């Protein structure tokens, strides 16, 4: 069923994370939260204020934080561990793999400040490989919510699910896709159809879903009817959504085009021998630069206008 898209006000997904943690803290007395000196930025500080006895700052020591998270999970806690995506997935990758995921421990790694839109901090802080490296770990689930409201439902799902999950979200305020939490239903492992269209399909994830919607509007003005799908769960990916899509697919992500959403979609296409062409739009295997998030989106041609232009250039009816 088609969803009537109306891009709303700009709201930060990480605020939704912090608010939902506070709510879940009431529901689950065994929920604990860890952070590595970034609780103000990741918004776990909201939980810390409400439940100081269930919040633990690990200091600037992400590897230890993941191990401590694992140990807490082994005593029956629901553990949320947060820091920037770079340090969560990069610095502590092997701790996540060997301590948490190998043992299937109940740890949710909620990483904020993912992608190029970290902005001014530049390449050292712009994590554009995390989907690839987290996706490759057995047992690990990978989710990138697309707006403030969906984030709330993703975090609630994380608390209910028993096992390791990696959630990535951007730093900035992004336009809401949905009008409310009820509207932003999250079904784990399922794509969400946002706009019907029978020429091509744009599959976007995370903060670039609004850009996909903008692109589809420009395309429509130019006589191309694009279907828009949001793919909040990247692992396991919704294979049916890809099988049922139009034969020209565009993947859109704030991540390297290698190994991320585009990589995951191409695996499905190749595995099932689908007769579909895939245009991967993302970061083209390069490091980022400093700048304002919105300017960087344009610089890397990830904004709706540039995405539409690129599609118009490359799209040919299949």
């Amino acid at each position: 069923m088609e969803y009537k898209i109306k891009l709303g006000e700009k709201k930060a997904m990480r605020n939704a994370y912090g608010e939902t943690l506070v709510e879940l803290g009431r529901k689950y007395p065994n929920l604990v939260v860890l952070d590595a000196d970034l609780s103000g930025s990741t918004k776990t500080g909201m939980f810390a204020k409400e439940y100081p006895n269930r919040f633990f700052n690990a200091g600037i020591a992400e590897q230890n934080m993941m191990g401590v998270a694992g140990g807490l999970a082994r005593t029956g806690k629901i553990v949320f561990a947060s820091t920037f995506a770079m340090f969560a997935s990069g610095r502590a990758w092997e701790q996540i793999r060997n301590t948490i995921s190998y043992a299937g421990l109940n740890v949710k790694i909620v990483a904020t400040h993912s992608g190029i839109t970290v902005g001014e901090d530049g390449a050292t802080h712009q994590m554009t490989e995390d989907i690839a490296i987290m996706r490759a770990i057995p047992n690990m689930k990978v989710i990138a919510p697309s707006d403030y409201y969906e984030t709330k439902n993703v975090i609630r799902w994380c608390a209910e699910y028993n096992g390791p999950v990696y959630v990535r979200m951007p730093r900035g305020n992004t336009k809401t896709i949905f009008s409310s939490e009820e509207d932003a239903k999250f079904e784990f492992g399922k794509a969400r159809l946002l706009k019907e269209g029978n020429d091509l399909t744009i599959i976007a994830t995370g903060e670039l879903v609004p850009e996909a919607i903008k692109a589809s509007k420009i395309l429509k003005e130019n006589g191309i009817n694009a279907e828009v799908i949001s793919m909040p769960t990247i692992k396991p990916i919704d294979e049916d959504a890809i099988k049922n899509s139009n034969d020209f697919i565009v993947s859109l992500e704030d991540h390297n085009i290698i190994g991320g959403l585009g990589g995951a979609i191409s695996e499905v296409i190749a595995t099932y021998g689908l007769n579909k062409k895939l245009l991967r739009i993302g970061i083209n295997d390069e490091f980022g630069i400093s700048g304002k998030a919105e300017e960087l989106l344009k610089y890397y041609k990830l904004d709706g206008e540039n995405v539409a232009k690129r599609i118009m250039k490359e799209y040919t009816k299949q």
Partner: protein
Amino acid sequence: MAINIKEIEDLKQIAKKIRYDVVKMIGLAESGHPGGSLSSTDIIVALYYKLMNHDPKNPNKKDRDRFVLSKGHCCPALYAVLAELGYFDKDELWKLRKTGALLQGHPNIKIPGIEANTGSLGQGFSVAVGMALGCRIDKLNNNVYVLLGDGECQEGQVWEAAMAAFHYKLDNLIGIVDRNKLQIDGCTEDVMCLGDLREKFKAFGWDVFEIDGHDFKQIVDTIEKAKSMKNGKPKMIVANTIKGKGVSFMENNVGFHGKAPNKEELKIALKELQ
């Protein structure tokens, strides 16, 4: 509760039996780490046979003491103890490291009695810190033990964990360093000198003890003392040990860090341990 002479003799006999199993299982596997398994055997035996509150029939009982083998490659000693105590069938020992077997090359929580997936050095220590924290949240009156290798202390994560355990005031956490002074590439002080580990842990705020890691009286008395000190500080015991302890040609021989005895060596070793 002090340990008496008979108990010490009993532990010695058990340790000898465990060492026999350790060497045999690694020999049959034709792969594994005899050196550190043998240096840590007495410590693991003392913990499971004398010091820890645990139940092989109920490995997950909530208030159990927990033991994390952070130097996961020395799991043959732990596996042998767990098997001897009935956590799983002893026949599993002879299938160590074989395709499809229960006993993996490094600890895995799928194995009854194993508390954490370890083997990548430094990581088990952090897990133990998290467990001690979790047990304290649950107001359990138990202890978490973690056994580290001395070479393992070259990992930065060890010091992150040491800092955290002090910060969180985990006096239910007792660490033991198996100070056998050898690592794969040679003497720890030549490869990457550890210097005075006691002073290093003291500087991180821990209460530190030093013992002979093959002297059951010292092991038991010191851990009992560490357990009793509820002063808001984690405890570290530097246990001086001999790598390959119990098998003449393996003792202090770096060649047996991660190499199984061949058939001939196995025969000789098992004879020595009979």
